[in-house]
């Protein structure tokens, strides 16, 4: 699992590559928490190169969204592949997490 962080204005963009599962979610969690602790309030997670997400990955997304909401921040997600989109649709997470099709759309929504 590789996570690269880039910036676009105030927004930190995390690009995930590989699988976000029980094994890799602690790494993702510490990366995200590190950014929030450093003062980043606007995060965009790009899933373009993500192959698979497990319940542990979903948990991190939900926890991050909750944490940022509490501190007036914002989490947006973009570029979901078919499987991940399906999980979001069926679980209804697509309605509580802000999901965009492209990175540009997501950035424009902040």
């Amino acid at each position, binding site marked *: 699992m590789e996570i690269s962080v880039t910036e676009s204005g105030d927004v930190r963009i995390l690009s995930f590559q590989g699988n976000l599962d029980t094994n890799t979610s602690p790494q993702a969690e510490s990366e995200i928490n590190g950014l929030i602790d450093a003062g980043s309030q606007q995060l965009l997670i790009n899933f373009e190169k993500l192959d698979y*997400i*497990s*319940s542990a990955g*979903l*948990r991190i997304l*939900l*926890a991050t969204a*909750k944490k940022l909401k509490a501190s007036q921040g914002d989490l947006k997600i973009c570029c979901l592949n078919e*499987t991940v989109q*399906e*999980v979001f*649709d*069926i*679980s*209804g*997470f*697509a*309605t*509580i997490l802000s999901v965009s099709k492209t990175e540009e759309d997501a950035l424009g929504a902040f």
Partner: protein
Amino acid sequence: MIIRELSKPRLLWDGLILVLIIISCVMVPYQFAFNQSNALSGFQIIYLIDLFFIADIFLNCRTTFRRHGVEVSDRPSCTSHYARRLMIVDILGSLPLDLIAWILVGNGQVLGGSLVLALRLLRLLRIVRLFVILRRWEAFSWSNPGALRVVKFLVSILLLMHWLACIWFFSAFASGFPADSWATRAGIAESGPVAQYIRSIYWTITTMTTVGYGDITPARSVEYVLSAIIMLMGASLYAFIIGSVASLLSSMQAAKNSHWERIDSVTEFLRQRHVPAALDAKVRNYYEYVWEHDRGMDKNAMLNDLPGPLRLEILLHLASNILKTVPLFKNCSPVLRDELLTSLESRTFTPGSSIANEGEMGRSIYFIVEGGVEIISTETQKSWGTLGEGDYFGFLSMVLGERRTATTRAIGFCDLLILDKENFNRIKAEFPEFNDVLKHASAERTEQISELVMEGIIL
């Protein structure tokens, strides 16, 4: 104008005709045997009833019929179908031929009775129409065929007894009540028609039921012959009555009997295997629920027995409540709804029974139709909340390909619709809208689902 065979007005008209047939079949032979006069009180009634039967002939020409299960509704076909079958019988039984004969030749005699009244007996042919109507009701429109068979049976027996009583009395009347006739010996030759009828029907019933007190006995050849025939009919009828009543009673309770038979055999099996009483009580409780809910019918087996389109029609009717209340169906197109209905399996869970177990791989989605479900951690027995009617669960473990991290248990009796993984994937591939439908259905519960996921609960 074409009248549909099973339309409400036609069935109501049939009901009226049925009553008039019974009145005709009682009055006409009574008038012939007991009251040999044209100037009797029922005279006008008979002709009034004739008008209804003549109208019935015209209506029958315009009534649809079924050919190979398809309703034929063009008028020439309806008329020719009726003409080939019962039109002649209906015409003979409805036209006032007695009135025509009376106008033409006056009141002549036949077999010692009035010719006019003898011709009036042709109205007994209406009995054929009675069976046609009852058969139509039985086949298509009667909700309780057992009760209808009882009515048919009782009407047939009572009419037969009435007719035999009339024949028995007429045997004495036609020969002018000779001294050795049964009526003279019984002292009713000069009595009024009511007393005469009571004695006649009394003798018929005692003879037909094989009681035969012997207070009224035959003495003349014609009476012996009649008695012998009625005794033979009575003996056969007696056996028929006993057999039919037993069969009717058992067929009326067929569903309940088969339900009890099933419970008995299950109880016997459990007793033989020394199953604890508490478990035995649970099984009985389940059958009690199945009886109250579905009258003991195995819905899935019954539905699988029907051809596809008919099964779908029944499912749509049975599920009419679910279609309105379960969010899944609210946003479906009719095609997707039909596909889902035929793919879902209906199951009932008993109170406290596990529906989907912790540690299992998700292979189905469960939609709650009736009842409630509790989410429980098996080890700690901690409850993570409940799900109610209209909610669904089981999809996360199925879509994520993970094991369930909690068990779902039925709170009371719980009716669920289950969609297995194969059907889920097939429907998803065939109907891209299915994801949207699920998205809408889960929208109201997203908070609860996300809280469960945060707690590590995957169903």
